[in-house]
Structures are given as C-alpha cells and as structure tokens.
C-alpha cells in the first residue's frame, strides 16, 4: 500500500495546480452561440479619437435597437487601436482569440485596415467598414473586406465634378502625408485633370503642421481658383485661419472629414463658405433614415444631427447582425451573402461591386455658414 507522506501530498497538489493552469491556458474561449458577437477596432484615444467616438455612438445605437426588439442579442466588443497599425492588429487578434469574434464592424483608419488585411483573410474574419476610404483597399482588401463608404476614388470624382461645374479650372492640393492623404491626393489629381482641370500646386502637409503662412502667400501669387484640402480637421482649420488672415480669395473644398467638430471649433469664422461633399443622398429622407434620426435624437439629444460615421456605424452593425443570423455566424457564407446583398440602410441603398466597394451612392454637396452673432457654424446644403 502506498504511504501518503508529506512529499507525496505536496507533489500531488503541485501537479493539480499545474494541470489546472495548463487546462485554463489551452481552453478555447467559451462561445455562447445564442449571441451575435460583433467586434470593432476603433481609434478611441489620441487626436483623432472623435472619429472613433462618432462611430461608437452609431454602433451602440444599432446594438441597443436590435437587442430591444429581437431574441438573439448582439454582444458588441469595442477595442481601441490608439491609431497604431500594430495595436490594431493586436486588438483584432484579441477579438478572435479571446472572444472568438469573426464579424467586425470596422478596423478604423485606412493604414490600420491595410495592415490587418492578411490576418483577416487568413483567419476568415469578415470586416465591414464604414469609414475607410483609401482607394488601395478596392481589390486589395480580399474576400473578407467590404465597405459601405465610397472609396476616395469615387469621392474625388464627385469633388472634381463640383469644382469644374463651378468654373474652378485651376486647382491646388494640400494633402496629409499618411496613407489616406496620399491616396486621396492621387485620386483627386487624376479625376480633376480628367475633367479638364489643371493642378498648379500639390504639396504635402505634415500631420501636426502649424505653419501655413508660406503656403497661403504662395497661393496669393499663383492664384488657384480652388484649393482641395486633404487634411485632418485641426490642420485644415489652421490653414483656413491663415487664408482668412491673409485675405486669400479662393474656394476651399474638402471631403467628409470636414464634418468633424474640430474644424469649425478651431477655424471659427474662417470656416464660412468652405465646401465639402459627404456620401449621403440628398432630398427627402427615406423611412430608414427617419427611423435612425429618431433613435439618434432620443439617445443623444433632440435636434442634434448625427455625424456621417455614426450613420455608417449604425448600418455596419445592423447589416453584420442580419448576415450573421442568416448564415449562423459562418464568415465564408456571410461574405458570399454580402456580395449579393441589396439593403436599405440609414446611409442609403447598400450593394457591393466586384471589389466589395459599395455601389456608388449619391453624394450631398455641403457648405459651412458662420453666424457672427451666435458665433456658431452650421452645415447647409450647397446650392
């Protein structure tokens, strides 16, 4: 008979402890099949966190709406990439490995998205983006990447068309030095020239640049009819202030990132008259848009207007949840289903082309108006 002396007892206990930890470490995360698990990797800290917050608002709104009206609940996990490519990949891995999430409503930022493309395709993670506009993502995104926001290629055509229609045939481009800035600059350059415009100056602007006096002085000499600003809101605002200060008479045009509140906050009266386009249909709102606006106002305040990224996030989460239910959470089947989808969302009609880009939606032309009495800027439909 074996004698249970002290050493043997200690050995058994240690073995149990070791086995316990090994089991924990290798145990696959418990997956609750009754829930629709959706993840998001957003920029929620740093200078561009407002974009992440806008998106988060829409994602939460969609999840809350669906959870209140259906049995199968949405479990939304939102992580912060801090605007870093490496961290975006790390967080996406965490979503997959710790939560077994294969449906992702955006990896925010074109640079971040491009960095995670090999991972999403190797691991069959379906990403539906509502904010990434980099033209490189068309095709490069692979089988599991879709986006409901038009690529910069499309946005640049719309912006160029507006400029040319307004008689602005001599343009200049100021662009941010990152992936998004360079991508949109190339697309704008091409589409504007294709329509008969001439780009007389195209120069990069460092992301946190604060000095714009030399550039505005140069524009006073070269006199472009239009300056396309492919800049982040804070940098764009500083440029606008310099334009106002030096009295440069030229039209300023931009894209959807001009909807961020930092632009009018910093530019103040210099924002008056700035034109930009957003991928939202003009005209009477559809029932889906009305419903979204009601929900938004109920949660975030009556009379407030949702940011374009909030609208996109709302559609991303609702569409992903719908596809998840239809395919029982199988990302391969979900990707095939998305390729054929015809969906009416708050951002308009959603269908995808062969590159998984949203089939072109209408763009709205907008203009900033600054009220000198209330000292507030508002966004109006441009004539």
């Amino acid at each position, binding site marked *: 008979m074996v004698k249970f002396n002290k050493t043997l007892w200690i050995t058994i206990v240690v073995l149990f402890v070791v086995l316990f930890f090994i089991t924990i470490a290798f145990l696959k995360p418990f997956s609750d099949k009754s829930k629709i698990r959706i993840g998001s990797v957003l920029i929620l800290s740093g*200078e561009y966190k407002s974009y992440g917050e806008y998106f988060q608002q829409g994602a939460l709104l969609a999840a809350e709406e669906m959870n209140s009206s259906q049995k199968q609940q949405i479990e939304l996990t939102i992580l912060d990439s801090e605007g870093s490519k490496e961290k975006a990949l790390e967080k996406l891995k965490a979503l997959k490995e710790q939560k077994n999430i294969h449906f992702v409503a955006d990896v925010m930022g074109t640079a971040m998205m491009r960095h995670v493309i090999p991972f999403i395709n190797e691991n069959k993670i379906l990403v539906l983006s509502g904010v990434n506009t980099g033209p490189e993502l068309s095709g490069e995104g692979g089988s599991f990447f879709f986006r409901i926001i038009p690529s910069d290629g499309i946005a640049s055509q719309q912006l160029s068309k507006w400029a040319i229609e307004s008689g602005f045939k001599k343009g200049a481009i100021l662009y941010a030095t990152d992936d998004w800035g360079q991508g949109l600059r190339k697309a704008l350059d091409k589409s504007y020239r294709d329509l008969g415009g001439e780009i007389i100056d195209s120069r990069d602007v460092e992301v946190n640049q604060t*000095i714009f006096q*030399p550039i505005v002085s140069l524009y006073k000499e070269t006199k472009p009819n239009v300056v396309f600003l492919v800049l982040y809101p804070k940098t764009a605002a*500083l440029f606008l202030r310099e334009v106002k200060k030096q009295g440069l008479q030229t039209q300023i045009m931009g894209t959807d990132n001009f909807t961020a509140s930092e632009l009018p906050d910093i530019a103040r009266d210099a924002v008056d008259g700035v034109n930009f386009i957003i991928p939202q249909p003009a005209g009477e709102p559809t029932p889906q848009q009305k419903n979204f606006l009601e929900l938004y106002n109920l949660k975030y305040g009556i009379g407030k207007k949702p940011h374009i990224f909030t609208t996109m996030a709302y559609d991303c989460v609702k569409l992903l949840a719908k596809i998840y239910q239809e395919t029982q959470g199988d990302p391969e089947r979900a990707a095939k289903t998305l390729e054929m989808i015809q969906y009416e969302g708050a951002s308009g009609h959603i269908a995808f082309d062969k590159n998984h880009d949203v089939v072109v939606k209408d763009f709205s032309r907008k203009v900033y108006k600054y009220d000198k009495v209330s000292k507030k800027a508002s966004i109006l439909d441009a004539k």
Partner: protein
Amino acid sequence: MDNLIHGLTIGSIIAFVAFGYALIYSILRFINFAHGEIIMVGAYICYFLYHTLGISSFFLSCFFAMLITGMVGVGLEKIAFKPLRNRSRLSMLLSSLAVSLILQSLASLIFGTSPRILTDFDPTITVLSKTFYVREIVVMIVLPFLAIAFFLSLKYTQIGLAIRAIASNQARAAHIGIPINTIISISFFIASSLACLAGIALGMEGGLTPSMGFKYSIWAFAVSVIAGLGSMKGVLIGGLLYGILLNYAIAYGSGLFADALSLVAVALILLIRGKGFFQIKLREF
C-alpha cells in the same frame, strides 16, 4: 518678404522656448526635456483660469497663468531635479524625460486629447498692408525687450551676477555665499513663465492638446544645439533665424522637408562645429 516677417514671428516663439533650455542648461548643465511640456502646462493653466474659474479678463488669466506656471516649474525642480543634483547628469536627464511623460499623461487624463479652444478673442492688426494677429506682434515685441532686460540684468544686477557665477562654477559660487537654490528656483521660474507665454500664443492659434508643445520643443532643442548649449544670446538669434528658415523650407519644399531640416541641421552642426555657433565662454573665478 512675407516669409521673412512671418519667420520672425514663429522664430520668436521658438526663441522663447529655446531660451528656457539655455537658461536651465547654463546653471545646471543638463537638458531639461520636460521644458517642452511646460508650454502645454502653461496654456492649460490659462485655459483653466479663464474657462473653469471664470476670470473675466483674458489678459489677467494670461498674467496669472505665467505666475502659476513659473511656480510649477520651481516645484518640478524641487521634486524631480534637486534630489539628483549631486548625481550624474544622465539621471537628471532621465528624470526630465519622466516628468515630460507624466505631464502629458496628466493633461490627457484631466482635459482629454480633443483640442480645447483657449479663446475666441484673437484680433488681427494690419501694418503696412500686412495682416498679423496681435499675439504675433506681442511675442515679437516682448522678445527683444526681454532679451535686453535679461542681458542688462545679467550684467548689472545681483541676481544676474549670481546666475553667471553659478553658471561658471557652482561649488565656488556656493562657497562665497551665493544662495544656489534660490537662484536655480528663480531661473526655473523665468524659463517656465516664458514657456507659458509661448504656450498661450500657440494655444490661441491652434487650440490646446496634450502634445501641443512637442514640435516647438523639438525645434527649440535644435536651436539650442545649433546655437551652442547654454548660450542665451545664441538661442535668441538662432531662434529667429530658424523661424525664417522653417518658413522658406515650407514655402519651397514641404512640411516633411521642414521637419527633417531641424534634424539635419543638428546633425550637421554637431559634425562641423561640435559645440554650436555661440559657444559660451565663461571665465573661471
């Protein structure tokens, strides 16, 4: 001509910050990397006084912010640098880096990372058909006054003589009864108050963020190295020249080119003239 004039306004702000680097270096012989964050701290203090405490006058808020920032600078010296004075310079340098990170994190925690607007009040003035912001003119006027006052005080006042004595030989200065700690505190107070002024000027232009001082601190550091570490005359001239150079680099190159310029200039100066152009010559006593 436009680039020249605007270069002087940018250069004045850089000179203010670089002046702080030089002053601290001349008496403690270390580069205070936390000085860049003092720009941000000063601007946020002004924001707090004006918006949170509701001081009705913006100018009064600026004045108090300069005083408080000066005291913050003195406090930081007492906590982070004084205990390390007798250790290697590397430990003070590392301590300044730690202070820099802590200040930035604290600002992020308290005020968040989204830009805060310091004031809507940012009037312009037109001089000889050129438009300037009043703050640019203020900075440009204050700088030469400050420079003259500072150099006169260095030469003709007790405190000035004490600073020069400490810069020359701290041990001997202590031996003849110069109150080392008080003079160091005064130097930190002056350097921090000036950084606050630079911070307010920058904050009025582009809003307040926890990283707002970073770029100017890099430029000011580059100017300090180019001018010669510790040379106050050098950083004032160097700051102005650097501002002009930056403006031309942006006009005829690009934003990235202008940024690279500072690093290339530092590397070249270190290679050609190791101790900068305005090397301080102090007589031992």
